[in-house]
């Protein structure tokens, strides 16, 4: 089975939010909610400051606490590349998955079920890229199989320094940021 992941080059990301707009349009994300967003992390001491701009979303964790805590079996790991998904018609809206996610990646859809980034599985299964990756004007985002050493994402990770978000939480996030 493939293990889908994303690699995002923080040296190329300018925070234009094209990925955010593309996701909301593609997935009909309700007004007031976002499946992906831009983070700006500034460090240093003026005037020697450094800013990292990141496009963030569900990290499609390899050790997903949101799946383990679900009392209904609605949150699950998909056969397609290990993507974490939610069966909308099984979800009781208990919000345990939201409490379990250290990234705040989930929200309650106005219709009552938990929702989140799906890596645009409906596109991926037809050979297309996730909407956010396909529209990025700086080509800072790459998507592919992390288990395949010949994939773009694996090559980028092998050649550049990178980090994931809050790895100390132990969830094994599958989105990596090149620095």
């Amino acid at each position, binding site marked *: 089975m493939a293990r889908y992941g994303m690699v995002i080059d923080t040296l190329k990301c300018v925070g234009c939010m094209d990925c955010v707009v593309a996701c909301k349009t593609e997935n009909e994300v309700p007004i007031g909610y976002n499946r992906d967003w831009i983070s700006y*992390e500034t*460090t240093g001491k003026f005037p020697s400051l450094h800013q990292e701009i990141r496009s963030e979303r569900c990290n499609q964790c390899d050790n997903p606490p949101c799946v383990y805590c679900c009392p209904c079996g609605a949150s699950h790991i998909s056969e397609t590349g290990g993507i974490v998904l939610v069966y909308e018609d099984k979800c009781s809206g208990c919000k*345990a998955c939201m*409490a*379990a996610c250290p990234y*705040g990646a989930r*929200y309650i859809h106005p219709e009552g079920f938990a929702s989140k980034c799906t890596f645009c599985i409906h596109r991926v299964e037809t050979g297309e890229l996730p909407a956010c990756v396909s529209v990025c004007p700086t080509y800072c985002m790459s998507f592919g199989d992390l288990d395949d050493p010949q994939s773009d994402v694996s090559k980028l990770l092998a050649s550049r320094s990178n980090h994931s978000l809050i790895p100390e939480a132990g969830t094994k996030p599958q989105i990596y940021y090149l620095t």
Partner: protein
Amino acid sequence: MHELVNTRHNLQIDPHLHIWGWEIGVYLFLGGIVAGMMIISGFFIFTGRAKNPKCSCFWIPSIALIAISFGMGALFLDLEHKLYVWRMYTTFQWQSPMSWGAWILLLVYPVLIANMLLKLPEFIQNRFSFLKKISDTLNSKDSTMRMIGVISMVVGGFLGMYTGVLLSAFGARPLWNSSMLWILFLTSGLSSAAAFIHMAAHDVEERRMLAKADNTFLMFEFVVIILLIVGHLSSDLVHIESIKMLISGAYAPVFWVFVVGFGILIPLIIQLAAVNNKIRYTAIAPVMVIIGGLILRLVIVSAGQASNWSTSVFK
């Protein structure tokens, strides 16, 4: 400087998680007090106190049944996809404490009903002869009575433990992520139940005994709170930052004044004086204990949601 901002602004997520309101606090409190009632009632039945017609074990289950139903009502109110609540009972997810809880709650009802059947009110005995027959059968053997007492204590224990484990299993919420939480909630449930039964018991000796038991529970609860704090302070940065919310942060006034002060220490002093015949027994101390137990759940539920791993970024 070290600053992190983002453009997300999702409802219930930003600026910090706030998915669970009063409903979950009330549910955990009622779950805890019912657990305490089941343990105390089960203990009374097991030790043969049920032979005393004034024994509290005859009316505790009815109150517990009403309380747990209100608790489940509060839980239902919290669900966002209410019509799909039945989905919890189409599966058993062994890794999910909430799934364990859903099934434990189903076990609570038959156990409480078995307790209630031990002594039926006369108007029910007269109307429903088959219930009287069941009641007579249950009462006919001491071993059956003792078995009901043991089952009541065991199921009550699981219910009380579960209310704490439910929260402590969330690794993403450092304040909840402590192995002391289930002990705290179980002890608090026992002290609230003892306080409630102490107020309502008809038997004077039983009231004295429950006041003494409540004092023990309160002292133990205070020790558990100290251990919870020590455990967090000796852990990693995120746990230290999370417990600071209770020690000296935004939740400190309500925690120290209403949970520790009015909820544990002051009622403990009052009840110790009453037990030692320095003052008369009043309802003041038990009421304070019960309200303190409720505020404890509300504070822990609220503060826990505000605690998160992002503090690990800011070293």
